[in-house]
């Protein structure tokens, strides 16, 4: 028996969007590049930098090649959907707001148990870390709650709260189903119908068929592009029109390629730290450009012109 009146997957998303829109958030659409988490989208990674307030919420399909299970595992997915909320600065009643958002999707908190368990977050690749909790609903982790402290190697001017809801888990919980594939996306269509082929085929590609040499080549191409742009910025006259965001997209490409190579077993343990360092270098490099371009922060040495 479902614990609460059934809510469809898409209806849950509508209600979260509506709730956060009513609480002052821009509702963005998913970023149109592959990312491992909603945190990596420019809407989070770059917008949390600097002194301007920013409130935004969006669904973000998040790809983790190594988590793929050929569509066989009821709880693990290559690509799962996150609902990401950034509130910058954090309002004092943030936790109360968050709890109201749960009520908004039909969870009667007087009949459930909510706990906040310590869970800090750190991303060496992004030069970022934060402090927070995993939120447990009747023993199920439904949300990551993080107070960002540092991003791209910068101490943050305003401390944002990042809420990341795991949409599949939350819906499975509300619908009382044991497998994500049994989730009702909308009446008549299941999560299986919509996504199973994607999970199966992506697992086959990621684990069996992705060409390692090509992935490495692509990694190097995108890394090169990112670095070329980072190096070009100091000497570029009209800073305001410099393509910092496109440079960041090159970083995202690298990050995803790294994950693919990792899932493919192509990165030896000794190489791993080195490759993470390469991604970090360009991620932090772009964050510096953004801080300089948008917020006038930091000095950038003009790269020596090499003939």
């Amino acid at each position, binding site marked *: 028996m479902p*614990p*609460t009146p059934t809510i469809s997957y898409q209806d849950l998303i509508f209600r979260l969007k509506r709730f956060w829109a009513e609480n002052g958030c821009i509702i963005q659409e998913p970023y149109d590049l592959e990312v491992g988490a909603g945190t990596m989208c420019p809407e989070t990674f770059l917008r949390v930098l600097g002194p301007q307030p920013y409130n935004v919420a969006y669904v973000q399909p998040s790809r983790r090649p190594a988590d793929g299970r050929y569509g066989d*595992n*009821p*709880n693990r997915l290559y690509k799962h959907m996150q609902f990401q909320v950034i509130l910058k*600065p*954090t309002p*004092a009643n943030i*936790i*109360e707001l968050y*709890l109201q958002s749960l009520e908004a999707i039909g969870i009667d*908190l*007087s*009949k*459930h*148990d*909510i*706990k*906040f*368990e*310590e869970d*800090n977050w750190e991303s060496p690749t992004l030069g970022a870390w*934060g*402090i927070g*909790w995993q939120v447990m*609903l*009747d*023993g*199920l982790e439904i949300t990551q709650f993080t*107070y960002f*402290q540092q991003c791209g190697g910068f*101490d*943050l*001017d*305003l*401390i944002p709260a990042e809420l990341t809801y795991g949409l599949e888990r939350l819906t499975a*919980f509300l619908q*009382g189903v*044991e497998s994500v594939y049994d989730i009702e996306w909308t009446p008549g269509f299941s999560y299986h119908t919509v996504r199973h082929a994607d999970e199966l085929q992506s697992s086959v590609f990621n684990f069996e068929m992705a060409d390692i040499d090509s992935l490495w080549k692509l990694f190097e191409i995108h890394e090169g592009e990112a670095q070329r742009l980072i190096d070009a910025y100091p000497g570029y006259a009209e800073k305001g029109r410099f393509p910092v965001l496109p440079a960041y997209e090159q970083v995202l490409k690298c990050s995803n390629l790294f994950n693919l190579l990792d899932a493919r*077993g192509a990165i*030896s*343990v*000794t190489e791993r*730290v080195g490759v993470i360092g390469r991604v970090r270098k360009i991620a932090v490099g772009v964050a510096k450009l953004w801080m300089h371009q948008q917020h006038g922060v930091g000095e950038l040495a003009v790269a020596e012109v090499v003939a």
Partner: protein
Amino acid sequence: MLPFLLEIGTEEIPDWMIPGALEHLESRFRELLEKNRLAHEPLQLDATPRRLVLRCPGIQPAQESAEALVTGPPVTAAYKNGEPTPAAHAFAKKMGTDLASLRREQTPKGEYLAYLQRTEGRATGEILAEALPELVLGTYFPKAMMWAGKGTSRFIRPIRWLVALLGDAVVPFAIEGVASGNTTEGHRRLGKPGLVVTHASYEQTLRDNGVLLSAAERRARITEGAAALAAAHGLSVATDERLLETLVYITECPTPILGAFAEEYLTLPEEVLVTVMRYHQKYFALHRADGSLAPNFIAVMNTSADPDGLVRSGNERVLRARFNDARFFWDVDQKRTLADRVDSLAAVTFQAKLGNYLEKAQRVAKRAKFIAQPLGLDPGLIERAALLSKCDLTTELVKEFTELQGVVGGLYAEYQGESIEVSQAIYYQYRPVSMEDEIPPTLLGQVISLADRSDTLAKCFEIGLIPKGSSDPFALRRSAQGVVKILAEGDAALGGIRLGDMCFGWGSPLFDFFRERIRHYLREHRVFAYDEVSAVLNQAGNAELVNIQELIQRLSALQDVRKSDDFEPIAASFKRIKNILRQAEFAGGVVSEPLLVEEAERALYGAFTKVRADVHLQRAAGDYSGALEAIASLRPAVDGFFDQVLVNASDEQVRRNRLSLLHELMTELSAIADFSEIVTK
């Protein structure tokens, strides 16, 4: 006296940091009162995840006023021709008074201007208002955060409200825009915000709003509630202090509920089921009357009731998914046996500079076979256990439940038909994890664990990863402590293993490191006196050092013989002998009987020759008490020697002969324990 209440209202604080924070807050508040000369009654500290609370039933309302005589310039400099000089005016100004209020004081150096300065005692409320922001923010947490922006205050989690009452008055202060007041907040769902409190109503108001302030009360509510639920089903709750402590500090209103899972999951190993319940879900496991694991659990909610059973069914569903995961991993893992996984260890890093786990396992195998040579274990079994010991690192189950490494390997080995010796050696290889933990129960297991740990130690020392101060990233101290514990408490045959050749002989930093760990173990865990431990350890060579069980026998014997009347004097004499030999820079020689001219030295030589023979026999038979008693019995002869014989005889031959006698006595009889190390009264 005025009652005081401070409540720091926050977002949820990590449970494990709370007791330490309270202790720190208490000691700093006490210091604050003492520094300000404020008498007070005992402090009481309480906490839930959302509040740190400090109360005191009575603090002195204000400081006592104090008077102090301040001396100024000499009168001769303060007045010229009866007129005050600028120096006199300056002093009066500095004291904030006029010339008429100054007095003259006669001192040994002459007459001086002086002023009786009176410091009015400040009101306690004023002192606290000034000091509380720093007191609150100075509370130590292992990891703190900012919430109000760059460069603002740091605390463990955002501070959302502050209650500070001294008597009926609010002690006014503010932290990052949050002003102190007299309103608190109840439980997030069971209570209300904005609750006005007084000293008398505080705890009851919280209780009425779903918050049990006392940790002891929450603890009792959990243990009693859990025991009652279990008893109603004929079950008992597995004791788990650590989990209980976590639950006490992760809840404001703890309420246990009983859940169930399908019997079919009981086919999974109990270790896996319990790990999922305890560590991953924070549930208590339950046992049936016959001791077997029951298909039930107790979860502790942070709310008062589960009216529709939704919390129970939710938790059951989560547990089911976890168990399904575990079963899925178990099944997937069986597709490749441990033996098939040995080569895959090449892809698992042991340490960046020390290579991978395949190399590690091969070294452990080689090392284990070498050190175990005298033990008569089957080298084939040693090799098998060592090579398979790390293979579970490549399994899905260990990737998911890292705390089960070793245990999973052991379970898989047994399931895959490895011998019981091999399975057990793998299962227990990481024991002991602490000094309170048990050591591996079988000799093979002990050998594998010793080989693994000594390899890690030797290799880390080789690349300079040597623990310094509090920095010990590879937990080498714990690792070495485990070696010592196994040697001391394991199979008696371990005394003969060749660990010394491989480890202690290896180089001096590791040798010293081990010696220190042994000393630590004998002192802290076997509670032998410092000087006794030194007396025995100083005499133990590399090979003997491994035989900790024998060292302990020597120490027990030393402890016994120390009670005899002869012991202290003979120990003092050994110290004297050591000094004489050192001053003479004497390296040893052969005693010539004809050159023993005095009666007393002949007597000593005779007694020594007899005792030496006895001691050799007793030592060989392991009778350390007998041997040490025999040595102590030399006391009259030694005393007689020092009373009647002058070592520094004018005849050089006689002098050297006497030194030879003392040297031989010293070296021959110090093999069990170096008596000169004993601290005598």
